[in-house]
């Protein structure tokens, strides 16, 4: 089976969906002849033409608004926001329009758009090329949020997102674009939305995480294994609507849980996971619900400053040791 990067998996999914369904179009800044600043749409403009791979002005409100309008008239637009940091001008369109269209029309209209955006820190991006934005949308009913961790999941999840009848935000951690390769089948397959996956089995502690956190957790689990602690890693893959059943099964097995994400700790997705576990799995827990997440600050440019904000493998290991001691 071919081994590919996560960004290649994005390109494969987009190409195959463009080929499969004439209503699929791509739009975004520099997605055309350049193929995107991260090369996610490389070659697609030449293959599918400027009608279906559309360079837009650097104006995210318009990108989202036009995508929504096209979706309301039968298309399946995939909009690229060049960096998730710049999704804010599109926030009103995504939250007040896309998310509410099915509900406000009593089910008559749907809004099948995908908004893709590279996000995350660790690539010397500074305040405006590093943010995690999932929690800003996680609060909003009507939005699905997908964050893949592996190339295999990425291709299958992006295809599911494009075929989904409702709006999907598809966030790709840019540090994972070329860092971890994996097997990706040629040709069509999908990975269902709202289905978590246990990426490593263990019996002592569960890590509930997504995106780059999965890689940190797997690395930490390997280290803890030498200390006689087996760690189960649950990759949420879709954070909204979340697969709490898979999380619950893992907690029932290990009775201890660590939640890991690179987004800020306060008001993050982990807070909701923790609250739900406290409400519904209290009897199963033998230790505190811990979180490893970014400190509540912005993401500075200098590596020494950034490293002081975002979580790393050592942080995950330390938290796992603390939990294992209970």
């Amino acid at each position, binding site marked *: 089976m071919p081994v590919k990067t996560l960004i290649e998996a994005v390109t494969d999914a987009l190409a195959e969906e463009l080929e499969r369904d004439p209503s699929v*179009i791509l739009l975004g800044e520099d997605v055309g002849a350049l193929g995107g600043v991260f090369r996610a749409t490389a070659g697609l403009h030449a293959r599918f033409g400027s*009608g*279906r791979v559309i360079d*837009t*002005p650097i*104006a995210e*409100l*318009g990108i*989202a*608004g*036009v*995508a*929504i*309008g*096209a*979706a*309301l*008239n*039968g*298309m399946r*637009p995939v909009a690229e926001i060049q960096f998730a940091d710049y999704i804010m*001008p599109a926030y*009103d*369109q995504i939250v*007040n*329009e896309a998310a*509410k*269209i*099915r*509900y*406000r*029309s*009593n*089910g*008559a*209209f*749907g809004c099948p758009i995908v908004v893709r955006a590279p996000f995350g820190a660790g690539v010397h991006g500074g305040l405006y090329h590093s943010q995690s934005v999932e929690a800003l949308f996680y609060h909003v*009913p*009507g939005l*699905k949020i997908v964050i893949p961790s592996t190339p295999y999941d990425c291709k299958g999840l992006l295809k599911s997102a494009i075929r989904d*009848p*409702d709006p999907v935000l598809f966030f790709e951690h840019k540090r994972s674009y070329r860092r971890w390769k994996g097997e990706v089948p040629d040709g069509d397959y999908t990975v269902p939305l709202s289905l978590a996956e246990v990426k490593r089995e263990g019996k002592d502690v569960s890590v509930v995480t997504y995106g780059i956190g999965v890689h940190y957790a797997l690395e930490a689990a390997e280290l803890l294994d030498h200390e006689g602690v087996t760690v189960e890693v649950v990759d949420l893959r879709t954070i909204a*609507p979340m697969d709490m059943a898979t999380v619950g099964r893992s907690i029932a097995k290990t009775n201890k849980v660590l939640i890991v994400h690179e987004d800020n700790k306060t008001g993050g997705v982990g807070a909701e996971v923790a609250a739900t576990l406290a409400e519904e799995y209290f009897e199963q827990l033998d230790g505190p619900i811990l979180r490893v997440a970014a400190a509540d600050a912005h993401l500075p440019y200098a590596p020494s400053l950034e490293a002081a904000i975002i979580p790393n493998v050592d942080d995950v290991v330390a938290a796992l040791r603390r939990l294992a001691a209970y």
Partner: protein
Amino acid sequence: MTGTSDRALTSSPGHAALGLSDEHAVALYRLMLLARTVDERQWILNRQGRQAFVVSCQGHEAAQVGSVAALRRGQDIIVPYYRDMAAAITFGASALDCLLEGMSKGNGPWTGGRMMPSHFSSPELKIITGSSSVGSHIPHATGAALAAKLRGEDTVAVAYFGDGAVAAGNFHEGISFAAIHRLPAIFVCENNGLAISTRPDAESPVARVADRASAYGIPGVEVDGTDVLAVYGVMREAVERARRGDGPTLIDARVVRLTAHSSDDDHTRYRSRDELAAVAARDPIPRYGWYLREYGLLDDDSEREIKASVVAEVEAALVEALAAPPPDPSTALAHVFVEAR
């Protein structure tokens, strides 16, 4: 001529020169009257405590009926805002639809009680759902036009909005994108000179909305929005232009807002008696009635007949709408996603 207005009856060359039959010309009058009658009924229902909120189309009817009449029903697309009841009616919505939604009934055909009144929405009628935000639907018309163009259809998509929306970023980004790609989109500003209470000089540094079109390299056309035939003529040109592939048009239809912004607003706080009298004198409905009389298409008898049939239609709809049940609370969680929750 029975009218007392000193204005010209129309600045257009007249219905026949515009290609409208006598019957069609009279039908436009009936549509304007129907919208006005439903609108007036909604204010009564509000005062009776049966409808919590009203946002009115009174004074905008000629702009809406005249422009929608230049479109193909069920084929072209309109993306209206909350003041567009006459547009929705002209595109196929019924008095019953308006009243069911006005009273937030469960069988309201647009939102089933999920949205405030006058949030028109119908895939069948090609009326695209909108929010209550000012201007955020403008790029949706652009996107709808993009979809039509990509599929090789000759559909035209039309966004309607007030002059307040012209100040919003959505106006700029939506029109700019449509102009770049020469999309079959038309942007109709129903310019009543009031954004709730705010006047144009606090909304825009340029006096004429139509002038903004030059920034996008598209035609900007100002028209008397109280002159249904003039609006029809301007809109027909814009539609032809769009279908030819020559891109969008911005239409600045100068209308009057005869009512307060909404049933929760008291416009006498910011409009003088003189102003209210002046806008009442520009009411588009009597003006068009005088035109039809001038051309022998309307007289006292036929006007009485039309009004009686409109009232009968609205009253029958009212009986049915009043009897309709409110939405079932067990459906409150439905339609967040396609999947049931």
